[in-house]
């Protein structure tokens, strides 16, 4: 793949974020006018505890090249423990996803608080770069077909 083709590819990134920390962190990035690539599509959920892993699979099925899950820092969950559930679930599902053949480099977890606008912008920039390098998630689409 040539250099131009690489940069021509713009990945689709889905970010499942909680309403109380990361969504507000993204709002703060906006308020502070912190620029980041436009590839990310934020899906607002009440809590990372709400995130069923089918949602992640579904996003890939619908053409996402990268999925991001981000919520409150451990101990700061608006609902006391939802992010702990998410973390525990992720630990278990990780192996399962790998067994299913899903590239774990395509899924990223983060704790971003409502005060961390800068962290959000940097995280999305970093993730987008990574997604560009990984290229289109052709492999998953082939499984689906």
């Amino acid at each position: 793949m040539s250099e131009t083709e690489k940069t021509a590819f713009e990945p689709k990134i889905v970010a499942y974020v909680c309403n109380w920390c990361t969504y507000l962190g993204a709002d703060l990035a906006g308020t502070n006018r912190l620029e980041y690539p436009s590839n990310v599509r934020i899906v607002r959920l009440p809590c990372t505890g709400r995130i069923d892993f089918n949602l992640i699979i579904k996003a890939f099925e619908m053409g996402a090249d990268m999925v991001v899950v981000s919520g409150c820092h451990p101990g700061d969950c608006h609902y006391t423990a939802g992010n702990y559930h998410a973390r525990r679930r992720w630990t278990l599902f990780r192996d399962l996803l790998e067994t299913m053949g899903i590239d774990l480099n395509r899924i990223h977890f983060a704790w971003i608080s409502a005060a961390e606008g800068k962290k959000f912008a940097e995280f999305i920039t970093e993730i987008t770069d990574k997604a560009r390098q990984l290229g289109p998630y052709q492999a998953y689409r082939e499984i689906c077909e």
Partner: protein
Amino acid sequence: MARIGVFICWCGENIARTVDVKRATEEVEQIPGVRFAIDYKYMCSDPGQTMVRDKIIAERLQGLVIASCSPHMHMKTFRAAAKAAGLNPYLVEMANIREHCSWVHQNREEATAKAVELIRLAVGKVIQDKPLDAIKVPLTKRALVIGAGVAGIQASLDIAEAGHEVVLVEREPSIGGKMAGLSETFPTLDCSQCILTPRMVETGQHPNIKLYTWSEIESVDGSVGNFTVTIRKKARYIDMSKCTGCGECWNKCPMSKTLNDFDYGLSKRKAIYLAFPQAVPARPVIDKNACTKLKTGKCGICAKVCAAGAINYEDQDEIVTEQVGAIVVATGYKLYSIGQEQDNEKYTGYGEYGYGKYPDVIDALQFERLSSASGPTGGEIRRPSDGAVPKSVVFIACVGSRDPAKGVSYCSKICCMYTAKHTMLYKHKVHEGTAHVFYMDIRAGGKNYDEFVRRAIEKDGAKYYRGRVSKITEENGKLIVRAADTLAGVPVTIEADMVVLASAMLPSTGATELAQKLKVGYDEYGFLSESHPKLRPVETNSAGVFICGACHGPKDIPEAVAQASAAAGKVQVMFARNELTRDPEIAKINEQNCAACYACVRTCPYNAIEKAEIRDRQGNLVKMTARVNPGLCMGCGTCVAVCPSKSADIDGFSESQIYEMIKNL
């Protein structure tokens, strides 16, 4: 085909500068289901909202997408607008094309494309939106207050003064709590009883306060707005309606060997006794473990001398139930035991300080009684072993506090202040005596607090040493205190007549059992957990249950009182309505589909999901299911993710809504 209206806001130049609003409007109109798209400079302005309302009616819209700023900013505004136009407010979605798009991207092409896509996702979601109604919960405007120390008294009086009935439950024979036993209070040295007892009398006589002393909470059922509380009234052996509190009985009682717990074992009391002279209610109680009549059937002197005939040896525990809408927990604290017995195996005690071995090593609450005018020595500082006036007293701070190896890791917060106070009280009574204080750090944050500590050191001459005491031994009637002075860098040995240990504050006995009954969280030490450490400090994650005072963490009197009034304020906010309404974006269970595995029941952080039965008309069990209690559910959605049969879902963020969004990627 759905009839969705899309309203795209310029936000002045904020959005329009980077997003080509006109082009976006044209592209959005092509999305299936979109009846029309329209752009406007300021959608949140009055004309903007008027346009939204008019369009809802004119176009008979079934849903709105407002493409503008963050829903945290204006969701409420547009929901209200929808409601005003007769559209269910939960059929409004927002696409955040300002914070998440125009403000963070420079490239106009990219930003416009992203804005269109964000709107497409929102259209997908709104098509799947369902009209929801705010949940209404009936409300019993009565409050239960558990614990009648200063916090419980304050909360009860505030709620009662606001015109609501209060059920106040106290497990001791009298209200008043720890504060009733204190001598003088920092930083003003005003007499504790002088300021508390009028409030106690007021509480006892208030027409809106129903007082249960010598009673404990058995169980709590129901949920916010409608709790059913079962209370055990312990046998008092006194007919409260007949007793006049004349005192004939306890004056004549021949049994006087029981340690007085109000004086923390520094004095003795009778088998029938008044908790303390200012007790409210001023009615005695019989200690069934000390009374000869109750143990062997002989004696009965108190019954003979009682002119009112109020003694009832046949008294039994009584169970009563009360209906309340809100609960305030104010169960307070106790001190880390300096005795050999510890109630937690993690705590190993302080054998090096001679616990339980030297009678003149006492704890801070015992010193309060020694210096209290109503205490066992009438306010004279006399040491327990021989009643001598101690000429040299060593005060040790942080006994058990900030010591994860043997005690607790937190700071008990009030000890620096009361230790300074103790040195003053001592010096004011024993002028020729010397007060020595060993401390780790002096933490005197608070109005007039540091000045108070400086006064103890500079004016009253308390000797402060920064360092820990390693060992206390006894020689020739003196307590030899060996310690380090870390500022001077030398070991110190002091011959003391008495040692006072500022022991750590722990939650009172039984606090965790009560927390379990109330479904309130607690930390590893048993302190009850607030909902949010900054913004919801007196609420708990159990809706309708509030906390105040030292059950929540170490606290001094002003803080406990302030928190009690805050909790009472929260109760009044609840009671200002005639019924409770709650956000309807909560979980629900498809009960026909539910396999009753109860993964959700175990996962729910609010205990909002219960096991339920579905029965047919004949009452036969059809199946078991999980069921959401809408009064308790906070809408986190954790149950949705754990449900293996996909029976749990959450309104507002349902599976179909989220999938529809993703499909529109």
